[in-house]
């Protein structure tokens, strides 16, 4: 090991430690035997699955988990389709109002969500959308669109202009150009955007706690905010930790597999890994 490698290795280790400690702490707590939860040690003295089996007993956590998955997937699919169309138009076509649209979507990205909670709360109650899946999917759509459009238009811009010109001269209509030439080439970008949007929906908390009230549509993070635990007499810490670990696993897997894509997406293609 050269001196240079040692220095970089040390820097890497410190970085990894910083980022992984809180995650490890959750894992440790989750695996601690419920009786030892209060002992304050970093490593479990006694390993047990009790916390995990606890949260899966009954529907207190399972139902919200299903809601998270369902709402996340549906919102992601719709958001990606809508964003793909808009991002293509912004990146490749010329029409009046294009700049306004970009500016508007930027504005929405900067909106404080809290400002929309009260009106949405009232509106959804009036429309009967409160505490339903659509009641969360629609706001998620609106708030994921700016990120999705931004990421996708960066990918679309990478497709060479000449291909469109060639397709036009070959006789393809605008629609055929989009479906036969552009979309297949932007597939990696579409996949990345889907991952980012799904992560956004999975993670979302404020709307989830404001626009739902029962586990008919409450998502996992929201449910965890109000967890009462396995029984009334034990600290809920173990259950919460176990739940936290469970909802973290899919993200960890996604990040590990797709880390290059995610970096490329968030840096709009500037960093290709």
């Amino acid at each position: 090991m050269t001196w240079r490698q040692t220095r970089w290795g040390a820097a890497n280790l410190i970085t990894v430690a910083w980022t992984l400690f809180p995650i490890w702490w959750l894992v440790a707590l989750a695996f601690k035997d419920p009786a030892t939860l209060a002992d304050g040690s970093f490593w479990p003295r006694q390993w047990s699955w009790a916390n995990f089996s606890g949260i899966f007993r009954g529907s207190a956590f399972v139902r919200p988990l299903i809601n998270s998955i369902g709402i996340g997937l549906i919102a992601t699919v719709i958001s990606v389709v809508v964003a793909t169309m808009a991002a293509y138009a912004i990146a490749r076509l010329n029409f009046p109002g294009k700049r306004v649209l970009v500016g508007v979507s930027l504005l929405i990205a900067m909106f404080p969500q809290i400002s929309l909670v009260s009106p949405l709360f009232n509106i959804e109650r009036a429309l009967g959308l409160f505490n339903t899946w659509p009641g969360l999917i629609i706001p998620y759509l609106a708030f994921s669109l700016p990120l999705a459009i931004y990421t996708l238009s960066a990918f679309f811009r990478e497709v060479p202009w000449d291909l469109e010109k060639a397709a036009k001269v070959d006789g393809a209509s605008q629609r055929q150009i989009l479906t036969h030439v552009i979309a297949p080439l932007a597939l990696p970008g579409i996949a990345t955007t889907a991952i980012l949007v799904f992560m956004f929906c999975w993670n979302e908390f404020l709307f989830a706690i404001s626009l739902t009230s029962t586990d008919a549509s409450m998502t996992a993070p929201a449910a965890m905010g109000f967890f009462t635990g396995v029984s009334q007499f034990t600290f809920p810490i173990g259950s919460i930790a176990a739940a936290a670990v469970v909802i973290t696993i899919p993200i960890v897997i996604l990040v590990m597999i797709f880390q290059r894509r995610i970096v490329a997406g968030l840096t709009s293609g500037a960093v290709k890994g």
Partner: protein
Amino acid sequence: MTRAQLGQAGLSHTEPTRVERRRLSAATRAERRFGWALCAPAVIVMAAVAFYPIGYALYLSLQRYDLRFPQLSHFVGLANYDAVLSSGIWWHAFVVTAVIMVVSVTIEFVLGMTFALLLNYTPLWRGLVRTSILLPYGIVTVAAAYSWQFAWTPGTGYLANQLPAGSAPLTSQWQAVGIIILAEIWKTTPFMTLLLLAGLTLVPGELLRAAKVDGATGWQRFTQIMLPLMKPAILVALLFRMLDAFRIFDNIFILTKGNNGTGSVSILGYDNLFTALNLGIGSAISVLILIAVAIIAVIFIVGFGAAAPGAAPERH
């Protein structure tokens, strides 16, 4: 070609006649229609969910509207705003929010820059470092917040147990704010890192090599070459993080629920809406937050010249 470029090349300019302008070919018109059609769903969703409710929030903020007695709601003009702005509670929350925003963004910037440099230059274990730097971004905020909460709770927490006995940092105002800042930094540094990394990759490697040959130290290369060239990316990163930080909610909700004077303006809004069930005051707070965010954005874009990303690209 711009007018200036063609002017340099010696071409003359003549004004287009109205008849010629109207003769857009069928293709151009079709392209416009196609463009609008493609954007329509996105516009509809965003307008319905963001713009209509904002108007509605403004409307609500001008009413005295208690959810427990909806039939008693009536117009009170700016009375809600008056009540909020003259209330010590609001300003306290504002100060807390501002402190969190400035401190966390500053530390994140330094940390994010360090990580960006690490990611760009480390010769070892790139994949592992990249994954671990990204993880906090992907973790559910609530989960991470719980992790910090448990770590600092006396008894269960390994961190709390390092402190002198009897201290419960989450219950003392500024210590709790410190923990909130820590949690926020841990969670959002990846985003800052990535934005800075994007700016970093745009610095031409040749410039740095030339500087090295000229004898510049690492620090000099960093401050004299990299930082100035990264300025646009830095401004964008700071802008987005400032706006995000001002809206902080999730971490505070889990860590302290805003107790002991640790509430941010968003928490205040939430409390008024869902605990006090006062839609009028809650909406007024919401609108004030929106104005504050807008002011921050304007300061950055107009004052520092941060270029909004995703601006319309050129056509060939």
